[in-house]
Every structure is written in structure tokens, then in C-alpha cells.
């Protein structure tokens, strides 16, 4: 906490300092770096700008070439149609929030616990089991789709949200990510706690979990994003319209006469807002590192 206050103070003061040659040089470097990264970053929002611009167009204008970034007339009705029309988006939104939220919470808990087991405790068979976990990421989903369908059907979770949530919780990715961080935490920390009589559960919950906040946050952002955008699994495992998630809702705008890109992009822009909000809410963890002098190498 203290360390954080210090850093931010230091940062604020810096530019105000008198222009010594050293800080002048820093300033120029910073400026150059900013320009480079900004140019890079601007290219990266182009698709999103195209989405916004398309979402406000009439279908007939969408593919005018060269790209018309500013619509002829703004079709705010598109938003009205997506949100309150016959193909209203609310239900998909709610389903996505439910499915993604539960999956992310589950992933974070299960991955973090497993990662602790895989990194902080030595026991026989540990690394073999971990390798098998990793190996599961290497089999392409395309060939496990039908087996999973058969299995889920047999387990009775086909056509329910559980068919997305339960498998979504168990990701080798999350376990691996957390394990890599736990491996770096010096042993002295947990040894000290052990001396005081703490068991593994307490060490995990009270020491490692708080320490791993930046990593946990990146896991939250990434797993939220890919669960939110997941298309094939909900497509195959859900048939009831009441259960559909946002990516399935987007297919409402495709038919044999082509794709209604303007409405689809209206829905797509709406659909990535939660991800942006989550990102903004989480990003303070990237700025304010929680690692302070407590951890020493």
C-alpha cells in the first residue's frame, strides 16, 4: 500500500521537475515511445471503429468503397431494433452474463487451487498429471466436439447452460498460468507461515492468492473474453432459444440472402461493451502492482 502511494507520487512529480538535461531526455524518449505505440494502437481500433460506423448505417451503405467511416445518416434505429425488436438481445445478454460469470468464477477458483497443488507441494505423479493437463490443450476441439456432444447428452447436460459452464471451468490454460506465477513466489514466504502452523489451505488462501492478483486479473479478463465470445460450443450444445448466448444471437442476422452487417455490427458493438467495462474496471491492477517489498528474491 505504502509502496503504491510512493510510486504514484513519484510519477506525478516527474514532469513538473525542472528541465534538467536528464529529465528532458526522458521526456523526449517518452514522447517518441508514445507516438510509436499510439500509431500502433490506432491501427488496432480500426476494426472497432468500422463496427461502430457500420452499426449506424443502412445496409445499402455498408460496403461502399472506399470505406465510408461516417455514415450518411445515422441509423440510431438499428440499436432500437437490436434491443427491442422481435429479435431482442436482452435474453442473450442475460444468458451470456450468467454463463460467462459462473464459468470465470469457477475457473479462477479451480485453476488457482490446482496450480497451488502443481507448484507448491511436492508429491509423486505431480508433473505427469500436469503434463496430461497441458496435453489436453493440444487436441483440436474439432474432433472432440462430437464425443463431447455424446457425453453431454448422456450426462443429461446437453441443451442446458451446464454444458457450457462445467467444461468451461476446467481449463489447462488457467491452471498453467497460475502455476507459472506460483512457481516464482519464494519458498521462504510459505515456510515462514508453515512455521507458524498454517496449513496448505491457509497458505494458498492468505498468502498466494493475494499475491497473485495481477495474474488472477489477467486470467479473469482473458477467460471472460473467450467464454463471452465462444461460438461453437453453445451452437452445438444449446437448442432452446431461451438459452442462447450473445454469439448465437448474432447469427440471427445471417440468412440465405446474405448477412445484415449493419444490424449484426450493432449487436456486436453492444456485445463487446461488457468486455470493455470489465477491462477498464480491472486495469488498475496493471497500474498499481500489489507486489511490494514483502516479497524478496
Amino acid at each position, binding site marked *: 500500500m505504502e509502496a503504491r502511494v510512493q510510486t504514484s507520487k513519484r510519477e506525478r512529480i516527474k514532469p513538473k521537475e525542472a528541465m534538467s538535461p536528464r529529465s528532458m531526455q526522458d521526456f523526449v524518449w517518452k514522447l517518441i515511445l508514445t507516438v510509436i505505440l499510439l500509431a500502433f494502437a490506432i491501427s488496432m481500433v480500426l476494426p472497432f471503429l468500422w463496427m461502430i460506423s457500420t452499426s449506424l448505417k*443502412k*445496409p*445499402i*451503405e*455498408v*460496403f*461502399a*468503397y*472506399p470505406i465510408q467511416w461516417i455514415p450518411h445518416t445515422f441509423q440510431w434505429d438499428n440499436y432500437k431494433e437490436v434491443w427491442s425488436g*422481435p*429479435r431482442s438481445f436482452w435474453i442473450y445478454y442475460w444468458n451470456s452474463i450468467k454463463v460467462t460469470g459462473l464459468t470465470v468464477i469457477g475457473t479462477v477458483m479451480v485453476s488457482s487451487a490446482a496450480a497451488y497443488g502443481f507448484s507448491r507441494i511436492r508429491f509423486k505423479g505431480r508433473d505427469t498429471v500436469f503434463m496430461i493437463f497441458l496435453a489436453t490443450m493440444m487436441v483440436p476441439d474439432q474432433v472432440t*466436439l*462430437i464425443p463431447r*456432444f*455424446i*457425453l453431454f*447428452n*448422456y450426462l443429461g447436460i*446437453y*441443451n442446458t447452460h451446464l454444458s457450457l459452464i462445467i467444461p468451461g471451468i476446467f481449463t489447462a490454460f488457467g491452471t498453467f498460468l497460475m502455476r507459472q506465477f506460483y512457481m516464482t513466489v519464494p519458498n521462504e514466504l510459505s515456510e515462514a507461515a508453515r512455521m507458524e502452523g498454517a496449513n496448505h489451505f491457509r497458505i494458498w488462501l492468505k498468502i498466494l492468492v493475494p499475491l497473485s492478483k495481477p495474474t488472477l486479473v489477467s486470467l479473469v479478463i482473458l477467460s471472460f473474453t473467450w467464454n463471452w465470445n465462444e*461460438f*461453437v460450443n453453445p*451452437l*452445438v450444445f444449446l*437448442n432452446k*432459444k431461451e438459452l442462447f448466448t450473445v454469439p448465437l444471437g448474432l*447469427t*440471427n442476422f*445471417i*440468412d*440465405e*440472402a*446474405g*448477412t*445484415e*452487417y*449493419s444490424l449484426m455490427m450493432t449487436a456486436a458493438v453492444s456485445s463487446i461493451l461488457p468486455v470493455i467495462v470489465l477491462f477498464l474496471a480491472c486495469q488498475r491492477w496493471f497500474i498499481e502492482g500489489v507486489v511490494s517489498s514483502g516479497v524478496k528474491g
Partner: protein
Amino acid sequence: MNYKAMSWVLTGSLLMAMLTGCSGGQPQADKGKGAPAASPAEGGNKPQEPVTINFWGAIPEESGPAKVVENWNKANPDIKVNYKRFVNDEAGNTKLETALLANGEVDVFISYRADKVMKRIDSGMAEPLDAYIQKDNFNVEENFGKQSIVKVKNQTYYIPAIILNDFVTLNKKYLDDAKLPIPKDWTWEDYKDYAQKLSKGEGANKIWGSMVGNVPKVYEWMDKAVKMPIGPDAFYTSDGKSNFEHPAFKKYLDDQIDLQNKLKVQPNFAEAKATKMDGNQMFLSGKAAMFWQGTAVLRNIKNLKDYPHDFVTAFAPVPKQNKDDKYVTAGTGYLDFVSINSRSKVKDAAWKFVKWYVTEGNEPMIQGGRVPAWKKADPDKVVSLILGDNPEKLFDVPSFKSALMLDKEFIVDTKFNSSPEIQKIVEEEGERAFIGEQSSEQAVKNMKKRADEVLAKNK
């Protein structure tokens, strides 16, 4: 290592055996060969417990199906129909196919491609309908025409609900400006001539003379074009090989290459593909004078809110390759193949619905351009439903009527050997010819060689 691998395989097979055992209760296609079994729903004795039928199709609900289902449910309180929509692309078809395997998810389904319906029949997904047809004295030939159904092992597995139309739409204003008549019977040479005369401008303001398809594809349009000189099963010879040696294939590629690269009156294939150029939009915004698409364009022509335009659309048949080509209908033909899932538990009720849907039931689909295959539908009513309230303002009605080809005989394919593989080959070799990486001659040679290999392998 060996031991380990062995034990993995063994565990796997055990698990599989377990799964197989557990799902053994599913009703299979071969059970009773579709003899109508007595179902509790029959006769409507128990109106308090309606049977539910899950009906799967690819048309968005608001373009007809919602109304169809509403009409049915109003008239049949004992059989409740639920419409479920899938998107007719690869992923959407996979969704349908897995759902077909699950119990109770699908009772009636529509296939939108002939090769797909054949594959589903082969795999035992569709229930034979002959017993039901006989029982009800339902005369398929009289109701839908002699060639409406391709039988498999002498059994009927589907009934076509519609005729999908294949035609070229033309911007009448541009035709008039160029003093060109609406073509009635034309060849690709005439088409190229039209396209040249209708092209105008340069760069961003260019008006293209011609657009082929909503999104650039090779196989789909080649398939339709070569039907005119060759007829049914154009891709196969009678001895089970591929037919790419027939000059029609090379001619199609040459005509396309002329339009795109030599005359530059049609957007270049690769550029159109990369920029996701949309044919509907190009045509309706007046940036393309002629557009070969067919049925799918009709709904958008009427949609002035999304596609505001002030010209009249005229219609022409697909051009022939030679003046004396035997066939005239190109890709126009039966579609929306309605089948009953062989795993359905409510087949009698499903049949009742199917019979109604393929005859009078699909009327609400007509306004979306889907012409009923049912012979007893009144053609004038069909035309007026398709054209909507304000036909003269948007459509050239006489040319539309003749483009429907209601009185012509359609070309019906019966062979689909390795069709998805052949489609992939045509797509690859054709595209390379279009972008100038190989000659059309080389392309058809490669198609022939590769397709023959696949056909020999999959025999």
C-alpha cells in the same frame, strides 16, 4: 511405452462400449421401415395433452415460419409445432445434425442442399415416407411433379416444399439508358456484350456491368451454368469418373475470366472476396447493373427501408453457353427438402404436419420469394404474393413471370459421389484460374485429375 499406449486404447474402447450401451435405446432408422406405428397422439383422442413437434428450418422466423407455425397451431390444438431456426452454413448444419442424433430435439427438418439430404438419408437420419404416403393416398407425382423426388433404394425420404429460382436481375433504368432490351434467351456472349455496355465510370464511382453471386464462389455458379449444356449430374461421366473434360467447364471459367480480367466489367474475384463485397448491396445501390443470384434477392428488392432504390428490376434467364443448349432452367429446381427424423417419437403427428406444410401450409413463405413446389398452388397468387403491394414500381412483372419457369422441366441431380471434395477442388483450382495463376485449361485439367483421384479413393 507400449504398455501405456495399449492401456489407453483399452480404456478408451471400454468407455466407448459403455457409451454405446447406454445410448442403445435410441430408435433406429431401420426399425419397422417406417410403418406407421400407433402413437398415443393419433386420432386426437386426447386433446388435453398436445403432442409437440420440433420443426427445424433455416429461414428466419419473421420471414414466414412464425406465421406458418401460428396458422398450424391455431388449427391443430392437438399437435403443437415449435419452430427452431438454424443458419444454413457449415456450422449451422453441424448443429442440426448433432441435434438430429439427440433424442426428442428434432422431429421434422428441412435440408437445403441436395448432397446434404442424400448424406442424411444414407446415414439413416430420415424416415422413409412411403408407408405414410400410401396410407393417405397422397399422390406425390400429381402434387409435385414427376421428378420432384430422388428415391433412395426405391424409398421416399423427403418432399420438396419449394422451387428455388435461378435468374439474372437487371437494373431496368440502366438497360433503358443503354437502349438494351430485356434479354429473353441469351448466351454468355450476349451477356458479356451487355455487361460491357452497362459498365461505366472508374474507381470508386464505377458501375459494374455484372456481379455473380452474393459472395464470390466458383463451384456454386459453375454448377448452375454447366447444367444448361450438359443437364443433370453434370460433374460425372457415366462410368463413375469426373466430367471436367467436357468443354462446358473450361468455357465457364473462360467467360468469367473475360468478365473479370479482360473486360473488367465484373469485380475481380479475389478483391471481391477479400473486401467481402456484397452482391445484393452492389445491385440495389446501383453499383452493379446485372446480378446473378436468384430467389434470395427478391426479399431485399421489396425492402425499401434497408435498401432504398428507385429503379425497376427486370429479370432474365441464366445465359446459355451455346444457342442450341438443351436445357433452359439452369439452377432453378426443387429445394427445401422436408424430412422426418428417423429418431422422432411422434412420427404420425410429424407426417400430418409435413403433409400440410408442403401443400397449403407454406403459403406464408411465398412472400419471401419461395415458390411452392406444390402444383396446386395458384401461380397468379404466388406471383402477387412475391411481388407485394407495389409490383410495378419495383418489378418488371412480365419478365419476372417468365423467369419463374413454372412450365419448364427442371434439371434434377441424382449423383453426389464425393461431392464435398469435388466442390473443394473446383473452388481451389477455379480461384487460381480467376486470379491468373493458371490458365483455364490447366485448371480444368487439375480438376479432372484431382477429382478422379478422390472418386477412385472413395469408391
